[in-house]
């Protein structure tokens, strides 16, 4: 069990969530450190999504505690969680397809200059900054003026992840970032995850593909029937072990 000296950026203790008489989460405890990738694995209905939704402020826990940077916290709304630096990237919700990469990147944070009473977009700066940021996280082949609709799934994920990092994301929650992606695209997303991890961002990853999650995660937290079944360092557990644990073996 996690103690005070573990250096967790986010830690949840004994999280429990009931929806009426349905127990979605019985007892879940885990933590994630700066620059660490935690893979949250478990069968459908095990409670991974509920745990994620509590951490990102969509749900309030029925009982249990959340510690953010050492202090006990309650997130009343997704906005509040975001204000603390907790960013969730969903597969399809993250970007506006009809806008360019740069316009997506700076959506609601547009660089602008004042012209009397009106704020005008500083398009040049917006595009230049976006190009810089893309380079910094290792995406070299995308023009910031390209509409997002012209990007592949992996590129979209990469742009969405880069955006949350740039705007001060300290904890990135990725909900199945590689589902429906090709092998090459998956590698691209993983390399972006490595980049932001190297910059000190914490990552919680929900993933159904055990090979993928084992490749990218530093630690693997297995959830079964709303309880944490095990919390393993990557070196202590192999892909086949994970698959066996998930299948219900001891």
């Amino acid at each position, binding site marked *: 069990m996690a103690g005070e000296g573990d250096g967790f950026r986010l830690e949840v203790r004994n999280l429990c969530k009931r929806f009426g008489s349905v127990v979605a989460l019985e007892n879940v405890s885990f933590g994630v450190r700066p620059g660490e990738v935690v893979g949250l694995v478990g069968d459908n209905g095990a409670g991974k999504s509920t745990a994620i939704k509590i951490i990102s402020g969509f749900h309030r826990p029925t009982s249990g505690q959340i510690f953010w940077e050492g202090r006990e916290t309650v997130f009343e709304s*997704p*906005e509040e969680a*975001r204000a603390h630096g907790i960013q969730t990237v969903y597969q399809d*919700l*993250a*970007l*506006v*397809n*009809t*806008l*360019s990469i*740069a*316009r*997506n990147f*700076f*959506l*609601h*944070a*547009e660089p*602008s200059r004042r012209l009397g009473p*009106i*704020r*005008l*977009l500083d*398009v040049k700066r917006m*595009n230049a900054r976006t190009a810089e940021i893309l380079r910094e996280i290792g995406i070299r*082949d*995308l*023009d910031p*003026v*390209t*509409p997002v*609709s*012209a*990007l*592949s799934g992996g590129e979209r994920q990469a742009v969405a992840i880069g955006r949350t990092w740039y705007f001060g994301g300290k904890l990135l929650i990725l909900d199945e970032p590689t589902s429906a992606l090709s092998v090459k695209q998956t590698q691209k997303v993983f390399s972006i995850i490595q980049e932001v991890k190297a910059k000190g961002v914490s990552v919680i990853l929900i993933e159904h593909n055990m090979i993928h999650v084992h490749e990218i995660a530093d630690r693997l937290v297995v959830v079964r029937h709303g309880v944490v079944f095990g919390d393993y360092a990557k070196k202590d557990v192999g892909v086949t072990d994970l698959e066996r644990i998930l299948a219900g073996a001891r």
Partner: protein
Amino acid sequence: MGSSHVGEGMEKAPAAGSGLLKRIVRVPELMVLVAIVIVVIGFVISAPTTFLSARNIGAFMTSAAQLGVVAVGASILIIAGEFDISVGSNYAFSGIVIGLLSTSAGLPTWLAVIIGLLISTSIGLSNGLITLAARIPSFITTLGTWLVWFGLTLAVSKGFFVSAPPHDPFIAVFGGLIGYQFYSSIFWWLGIGVVAIVLLGRTPLGNWIFAVGGNTEAARAVGVPAGRVKLFAFGLIGFLAGVSAVFTLGQQGSMAPLYGQNLALQAIAASVIGGCSLSGGAGSVIGAMLGAILMSMINGGLILAGAPTFWYQTFVGAIVLIAVVINTSISRRVAQMK
């Protein structure tokens, strides 16, 4: 700029191949420009002396201004992902009110116009409030309010024409004759268009309008006040319906309660011809303005060419269909090219 896939620096070729198709998708006004060229050539051949005369250009630009100022609002609202079917009733109602206030009620014209514009803006805003509060499609909301305001227009006017004060200098500023069938409304319309183009393509609010129409949830997730952005677009088209009514009062000196009943669909048609996507998030103010010019050109040109004017509806309908089919197939092809 305000083009469909808002991306700056079109001069730069996209990194990936098949750049031409991709670039066409990024220039939504292209189709309407091609259509205008074809129509101009057609009319120059069929009515060579009259079509390019100053009188005719003035006449179709004046009618384009009346439709086009509403199309500016319609395109922005469509980009934000909503519709206003009631805009024609709003136009007639506010025109009738301005006329009654400045004649029967004896108010100074400038005051009557300000009150009329406040009313038309409020009607637009109320469409937005109902849509957002009840969470119903704006198509349904404004289908209802279209009939509500149409009925109220008939009630207020008792079914009669309402005149503007004759030779009123204030009205003349907005809709007076300059010469050769050019009315001052043309220049107001172009001015409003420039403001709208800058707003949409060059301000943060413009970016939010595209974002809210393209993916409301994604826009909300980064903090865009989606409801207020939509409300702005609803209010804007209401305001512009009032402006169009002032144009009509200036040009014709009167407003009839039955005017404007086709206005909403014509403005939507102009927007679609000009490259607006009915699913929101993409489109262009310039395109909608060109669409209004195209439609007015066809209307005026058919008369000059001696063709029965009912061909106008058929023409415009066909162009709308062609525009949507081509737009859709291009975006589909691009989607498959990834």
